[in-house]
């Protein structure tokens, strides 16, 4: 059924197939870098655990389906909530204690947490992937003329765009978002206005983590649910963040999708470089515009 991915078939099929995969990867890059940017804005921490939390989201969905018999649609809500709560616990137990220290300690602490979480899952489930079936409503493929479009992949792109735009809306257009932006700019001043900044910080971390988990649930049926799925993607997302700059929500979304597409195109034209193309682009961006494409000059 999926023979069309093979290179011997017409190039148009392969091209659009890879572009679709690129767009899907791009949506995960976008959601993950969005969460990283929000967390960094308020907590001044680069959340290295982000990849592990993406993996936790996928495993949570897998667990809900295979142990509790709860399907994909409820998992789409339940898994981000559950993982978000673990994020709040992490913030309260660990991150709170290092607030105010040099942010390299935040990176090291969250790196350690990522090692623990990934190690525990590898200990339990090994390195091989657990399959997660596509929900029945989204199974099947549609011929749209120039290519075959699997329904689930179309759904992932639409859903990711929706999540990104909703996050943008909350941050830019709501009162909560205004508090968030203000606290990013000057937490002390915002606190003197009577806003509970520590609670805002906790909820922001939980929210950013929930976004990562949501990406994990969306990814579960496409990629297998594996303990290393997080560490595979997190380094690429770091490169995306360096390219886009963390100063802008829309910038994170645009650069995430664009870099996914470029990666997909590289797979068609020069597959050997598909793993490294994003890092090469990062080097070029550092040469031309060191602050990142959408970043403010340092």
């Amino acid at each position, binding site marked *: 059924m999926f023979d069309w991915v093979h290179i011997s078939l017409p190039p148009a099929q392969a091209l659009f197939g890879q572009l679709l995969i690129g767009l899907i990867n791009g949506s995960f890059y976008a959601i993950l870098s969005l969460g990283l*940017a*929000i967390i*960094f*804005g308020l907590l*001044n921490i*680069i959340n290295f655990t982000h990849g592990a939390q993406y993996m936790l989201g996928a495993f949570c969905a897998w667990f809900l389906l295979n142990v509790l018999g709860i399907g994909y649609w409820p998992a789409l809500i339940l898994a981000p909530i559950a993982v978000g709560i673990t994020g709040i616990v992490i913030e309260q137990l*660990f991150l709170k204690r*290092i*607030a*105010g*220290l*040099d*942010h*390299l*300690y935040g*990176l*090291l*602490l969250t*790196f*350690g*947490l990522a*090692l*623990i*979480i*990934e*190690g*525990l899952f*590898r*200990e339990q489930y090994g390195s091989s992937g657990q399959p997660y079936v596509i929900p029945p409503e989204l199974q099947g493929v549609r011929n749209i003329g120039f290519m075959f479009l699997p329904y689930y992949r179309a759904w992932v792109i639409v859903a990711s765009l929706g999540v990104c735009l909703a996050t943008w809306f909350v*941050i*830019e257009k709501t009162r909560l978002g205004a508090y*968030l*932006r203000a606290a*990013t700019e000057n*937490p*002390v001043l915002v606190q003197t206005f009577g806003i509970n900044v520590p609670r805002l910080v906790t909820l922001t971390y939980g929210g950013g983590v929930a976004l990562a988990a949501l990406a994990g649930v969306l990814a579960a049926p496409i990629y297998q649910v594996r303990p290393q799925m997080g*560490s595979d993607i997190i*380094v*690429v997302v*770091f*490169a995306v*963040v*360096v390219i886009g700059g*963390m*100063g*802008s*929500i829309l910038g994170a979304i645009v650069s995430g999708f664009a870099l996914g597409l470029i990666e997909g195109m590289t797979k068609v034209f020069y597959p*050997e470089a598909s*793993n*490294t193309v*994003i*890092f*090469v682009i*990062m*080097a070029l961006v*550092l*040469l031309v515009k060191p*602050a990142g494409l959408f970043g*403010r000059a*340092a």
Partner: protein
Amino acid sequence: MQQTVVTRVWAAGLLALAILAPFFLYPVFVMNALCMALFACAFNLLLGYVGLLSFGHAAYLGTAAYVTAHAAKVWGLPPEAAIPAGVAVAAGLGLVFGWLAIRRQGIYFAMITLAFAQMVYFIALQAPFTGGENGIQGVPRGRLFGLLDLGDGLTMYYFVLAMFLVGFAIIMRTINSPFGQVLKAIRENEPRAVSLGYRADRYKLLAFVLSAALSGLAGSLKALVFQFAAISDVYWTASGEVVLMTLVGGLGTVLGPVVGAFILVTMQTYLSQTGSWVTIIEGIIFVVCVLTFRRGIVGVLAPYLTGRRASAEPLPEPPPAVEGHAQGLIEPAELR
């Protein structure tokens, strides 16, 4: 630096211990620990004395290991040529990556170096001459200058020890030179160092290249010790481990990275059969160190052991984030 009698006694004792070590410990284990100790010292030169967190130092360790292994095995070069080849390539890589990475500061620097290291990992995985996931195996140790047969365990041990001491001496000399003082000034307050006329970026780049070259020396030696250039030496886990060794031993202390390396290598050796538990325990050590033990073992113990309260130079507790914003030390990020 002012050398007291106590520190001299400690240095002599440790040296005697290192010379006698192969007679009561497994030599390959000590050699591995010495390589990792050199690697950690090179890393600490950057983090502890310049304040640059490179999260991709495995790139230099691993690349040098591959180059030395390839040179010794395929080109048949003797160790006195294969090791400098590895060091040179690591230094060149450090020059390019460092030149790009120092354009960004703080947390971005860590992310950029990590991303470049991941690129090197993918290249090592796919390039035709690196053996993919198997690495380069069966590397001959060769004869040093045609005289010393490094295939002999003890000869190899003393060669590795000598190279470690050379690397360590270079780092000590750097730290205590005027150049090292400028590096520390940049760590403490970069805008002020710049305003005093120091080209901070050049100093940072030179320190980065030096650190990459010495990491490369560690990698080249490791490839000869194990006769094997492993893909795991370029993976991000190796980058994380060197951070952990330095953190456990003590950031910005001279001997801290050595102590940290020996502790971690010992742990890895004893727990190597337990699979993922090594990773889990490393993660726990990271968390505990960051939360409660930021000065590291040597950072805490050194003042007592040398009788000099002021001898250790721990990374100073940085200013709170808000102050950092005001001073322009932290790159501001806004959500607009």
